[in-house]
């Protein structure tokens, strides 16, 4: 049995599309990436799974139980870090965290202090004095302090500085190694690549691909740019190359397949500069867009 089972989940806000016919499964112990541009429906999906909003159609189960009927029991074992963290401003961090802890049927105190220390969070400050990044840390501590079986992270790294991001990723890996299932939503491909085992791509409310990370990267396009004297674009016209074009002295193209084929071609040239990089998320979406359009 999968730990999260989503079946045909659809949400309209009035006549506005939230998500349409979203289905996926998350296995216990996975770090599941949920990636898509802003407004694609990532937050809507997470908020449905937490029963903060109700679906127009479809079903969602966590631990095999309907999230809309058994929400309170399920949420004992769920952690949630919202994308936008808003809290009662006039409270001290420690008071807010203690209040949050009071909802769980276990003692969270020790873990709360450990996490706050690890994330370098000052517990005695008032919430409304905190910067955005520090409020995010409050969210992280209160999402993890009860050691939930499943955690939903909605754009968790926004607002965190690079050092804290790395610490946070280490923390998530550690918790995952202890058995926590992670649902990780983001619009930043690189961080999903760093962390996730499997990933679902959502675009305009629809899931367009669910794949494990390795397959996705292997199958994905590379973006290649070659600068060389008197280069003819047709030189790179080999199978797997698309969007071939020349801009000034450089040849740009996308390539999908065994990268050695491109490297062999390159080695025969006297190149000035070469870059081979991951496509941006937008470019990946362009790819899915074109494929679904053709």
């Amino acid at each position, binding site marked *: 049995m999968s730990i999260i089972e989503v079946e045909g989940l659809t949400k309209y806000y009035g006549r506005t599309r939230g998500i349409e016919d979203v289905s996926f499964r998350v296995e216990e112990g996975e770090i599941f990436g949920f990636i898509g541009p802003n407004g694609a429906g990532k937050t809507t999906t997470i908020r449905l799974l937490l029963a903060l909003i*109700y679906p127009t159609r479809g079903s969602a189960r966590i631990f095999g139980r309907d999230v809309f009927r058994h929400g*309170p029991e399920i*949420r004992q074992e769920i952690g949630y870090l*919202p*994308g*936008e963290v808003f809290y*009662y401003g006039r409270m001290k961090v420690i008071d807010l965290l203690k209040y949050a802890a009071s*909802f769980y049927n276990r003692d969270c105190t020790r873990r709360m202090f450990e996490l706050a220390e690890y994330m370098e969070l000052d517990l005695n400050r008032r919430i409304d004095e905190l910067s955005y990044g520090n409020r995010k840390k409050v969210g992280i501590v209160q999402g993890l302090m009860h050691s939930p079986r499943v955690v939903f992270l909605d754009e968790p790294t926004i607002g965190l500085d690079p050092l804290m991001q790395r610490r946070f990723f280490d923390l998530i890996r550690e918790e995952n190694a202890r058995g926590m299932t992670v649902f990780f939503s983001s619009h930043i491909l690189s961080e999903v690549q760093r962390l996730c085992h499997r990933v679902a791509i959502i675009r305009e409310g629809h899931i367009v691909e669910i794949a494990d990370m390795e397959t996705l990267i292997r199958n994905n396009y590379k973006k290649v740019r070659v600068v060389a004297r008197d280069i003819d674009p047709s030189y790179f016209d080999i199978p797997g190359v698309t969007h071939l074009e020349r801009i000034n002295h450089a040849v740009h193209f996308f390539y999908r397949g065994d990268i050695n084929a491109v490297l062999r071609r390159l080695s025969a040239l006297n190149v000035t500069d070469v870059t081979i990089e991951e496509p941006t998320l937008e470019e990946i979406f362009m790819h899915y867009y074109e494929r679904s359009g053709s």
Partner: protein
Amino acid sequence: MKANIYGFELWRKRNSILIWSASIVLVALLYMGLFPTFADYAAVLQETLKRFPPEYLEAFGMAGVDLSTVVGYYSFVFTFLQILLALQASNYGFDLIAVEEGQMIADFVVSKPVARAQILTSKLLAAFTALTITSAVTWAASFLFIELFREGRPYELRPLALMLGSIPIFQAVFLSLGLAFSLLTRGIRSATPYGLVLGFGGYVLNAFGDLLGDVKLELITPFRHFDPTYIAQHQAYDAPLVLLSVAMMVIALAFSYWRYLRRDIPAAV
């Protein structure tokens, strides 16, 4: 009911309880402090009042009021206390769910392992407890200042107890109405303007409703249902109107639960 939500919500209201209670004490002190003067010049005053148009006296709760007696005068003062009590209760009603949602902090509690009905019940009870504290302060201040300023004039306990005893239900009606109205809309960031319209609107409707002539719109306001002048004169509640208040409260609460349990919690977009 969840004890932690109840305790948290009540604790958050501590300043508000203090301010509303202090206002009540101040208004009661101010008006009751004038009682000896009013009582001394009662005969002159009654003469003067007779020259005012009856609608005007009605509007200010002075029709059929004998300002020279403790109970008569207090029933006049009680209207002002009612305004404060109504404002506080309506404020709490609008604040209960909608302001948290408007400020996007509702996610915090709704994503915890607790049912929506429990959240609403705990918050309602906390708000009602806060109102009950203010109600107790109203009792204490009223009797304290009556004793201080009555200068030996006698009074009957019954009408006073009836007026003060009406406070809890009076508050509960405004609390439930505020809550129900707040759930009809979205994006309320501050309860104050809405609370003001509901609480003060209720008073104005009662005060000036008679001017509307045949349209008996004033019958829907709790200010009319618990009219202190009526209570002072009849030494009893106007039972059908009190029942109307109770009915309004029950409907407002039923609607609020129905709506809140099915509601999408708003998020920042």
